[in-house]
């Protein structure tokens, strides 16, 4: 099986270890991974801030980069939601504005092939035990786009629960947003920080060593606050836990 990795710009520039983990994990499961070099940013921050027109060239670029791949897998719920939900919406808006159906066609051809990582593992590969080993106490924060746009449900938690050595503890009020929200974090910094502080208070109360998520952008916000707390808790992307083995432990 051949899949294209959409690593996302945040992971490419700031969290390459997450991208490497996805490659190792998928290859271990017998998947042939490709990384189309033409990929860039999906345009989510721009789109969500109101710059729809600035997003259109990135839609074209992303659609071209992944043309022909039956599966496009990405370790980010919000970027997956961007490609799956918002790209078709951008296409429809362009058509409604009398600018032709090109964007809509590109978006509609791409959207059904896009999978968030845990969704791909559980729904397409049909696995929950990916053969990982991670001897730590972990709590999981389901980021909003994964939870409410993609409806990932308990897929990430099922994958984590099957990891050898891993002790999964439930995060109180897990479904509440962490307060990141893209540019919200800088446009409304006080509310953002208050939400982040509450999320971390809940996470620390679990006694877990690792706060796991499936979206590094949320973890950048939470991890950035954590580093000022001197807490016995660190953030880690789910791909890095699922890729970890006894021979090759996570960072």
């Amino acid at each position: 099986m051949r899949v294209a990795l959409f690593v996302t710009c945040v992971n490419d520039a700031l969290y390459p270890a997450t991208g490497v983990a996805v490659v190792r994990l998928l290859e271990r499961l017998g998947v042939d991974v490709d990384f189309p070099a033409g990929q860039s940013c999906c345009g989510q921050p721009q789109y969500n801030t109101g710059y729809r027109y600035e997003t259109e060239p990135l839609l074209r670029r992303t659609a071209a980069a992944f043309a022909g791949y039956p599966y496009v897998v990405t370790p980010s719920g919000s970027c997956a939601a961007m490609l799956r939900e918002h790209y078709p919406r951008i296409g429809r808006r362009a058509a409604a504005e009398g600018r032709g159906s090109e964007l809509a066609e590109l978006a509609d051809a791409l959207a059904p092939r896009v999978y968030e990582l845990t969704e791909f593992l559980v729904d397409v590969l049909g696995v929950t035990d990916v053969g990982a080993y991670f001897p730590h106490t972990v709590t999981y924060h389901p980021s909003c786009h994964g939870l409410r746009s993609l409806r990932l449900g308990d897929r990430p938690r099922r994958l984590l629960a099957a990891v050898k050595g891993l002790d999964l503890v439930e995060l109180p009020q897990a479904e509440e947003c962490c307060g990141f929200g893209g540019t919200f974090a800088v446009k409304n910094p006080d509310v953002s920080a208050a939400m982040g502080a509450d999320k971390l208070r809940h996470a620390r109360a679990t006694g877990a060593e690792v706060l796991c998520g499936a979206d590094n952008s949320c973890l950048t916000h939470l991890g950035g606050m954590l580093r000022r707390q001197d807490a016995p808790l660190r953030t880690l992307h789910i791909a890095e836990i699922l890729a970890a083995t006894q021979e090759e432990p996570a960072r």
Partner: protein
Amino acid sequence: MTTDGRGRGGGRAFLGMPRARVGGGGRAAGEDRAAGDGRAAGDGRVAGRARAGGEDPAAFPPFPEAARAAVRDERLRANLRHATSTIRDKRARAVGELADWDRLRAAGKAVKDHTLRHLDHYLLQLEEAVTAAGGTVHWAADAAEACRVVTALVRATGEREVVKVKSMATQEIGLDEALEAAGVAAYETDLAELIVQLGRDRPSHILVPAIHRNRAEIRDLFRTEMGRWGRPAPADLDDTPAALAEAARLHLREKFLRAKVGISGANFMVAETGTLVVVESEGNGRMCLTLPETLISVVGIEKVVPTFRDLEIFLQTLPRSSTAERMNPYTTMWTGTTDGDGPSAFHLVLLDNGRTDTLADEVGRQALRCIRCSACLNVCPVYERAGGHAYGSVYPGPIGAVLTPQLRGTDSGIDASLPFASTLCGACYDVCPVAIDIPEVLVHLRERIVQGGPVTRGGVRVRIRPARGHAAERAAVRAARRLLDRPGALRAGERLLARARRLGFRPHRLPGPGRAWTETRDLPGAPAEPFRDWWARERGG
């Protein structure tokens, strides 16, 4: 009690704070409301104030500024956290009981969409039915016209005071203030509205306007203020729900028995029969709708539904979504007038006030489906921390953030900041009983603000310019797009970043807009190389 705003648990402890609720409010005619206006910002309240013709957006600071004060107000945070989390859990249980919730939600959406698409038809049908049943229909294009109509109707009765059912529409147009200016005292009779009125305060929630107050604050308010408006509270009043409710009940009873004019909104208007519906919990609405000789109802034009049977849907979804009740305690319906039963004169004022303009926007119009249940406020993590006053409008929370900038426009600082007052987490969309995709509308309105675009104002299609204050951001987004659209340039940028961080460049504080990030958060650590370099080296891509 409710109205547009809708019922709340009378005497039930459904929302942490005001627990007991009964109704009522009072304020002497002609009192200078502005006098008591200088509330300390420390308790989360902001300076703006309703005025005749609606609130003045210029009186409110932009959302982030107002929210900053609210976030630091520990008492407000505690009141809101307790109240919203309680109702949130109860709503989830009440909705979970219905196996066909998703279908009710889809049906409600479909009925509202159909009605909005044929709004002209249904409004005319409604007018005909109300007129045939003995009522009089007035059309008001904006807040000022609605206030003029109502004021003239009250004056024609010769009365100097009116009792009011809780109504979002009359708050939206600043009716109490308009009546006051005309020498008419308007007594709010919903318990929470009474609390707001006695405190010369602003409502902070659609359903529970005094949600920012706790019981001890309410007891103090009753003790010091009630006597100035009518029957005083007992000197030994304590803060138990039953005692507070009883004090309000006795205070309001005087008003109910004396008033000759009642003013309400409505939750629904049925086009085929001309029937108006008010859903409430306290019974004050029933009093105001039945005891006075003259009843005046001010209702937004989007509140019409085609048939009586359509109520089957909304009378299930509204109470469960708002008070988490299977059925609200009081549902009052009236059709025109009936000899010897209830008011002998009934006036319906149909209010536009920006609704037709909103209807012209194909993305934004879904906000007109709103039935004012306030479920979106209760699940919103931003509302919970910022409080309702930060939204600078009678419509706070997620629905306010999409409704207010459409009804009022986006010229003011507060209105242009509202669409950004959300993380787009989607919790509001999930609970909305008429499936308003609030995040979609928020993004749409953000676009209007940063890019400008076509809008309808006063029935005329115009193109608005981008809002001020976004020029630097626009330039940055454009520059970023040029970088991101060229992987060669992107790769060079990523390598530069990695090299800078390897050399120890890791600022604790960033300048300019980046400061908002580093105030509370560290920057992520620097990777040795970007992912694409690892791939090229390891996989030979």
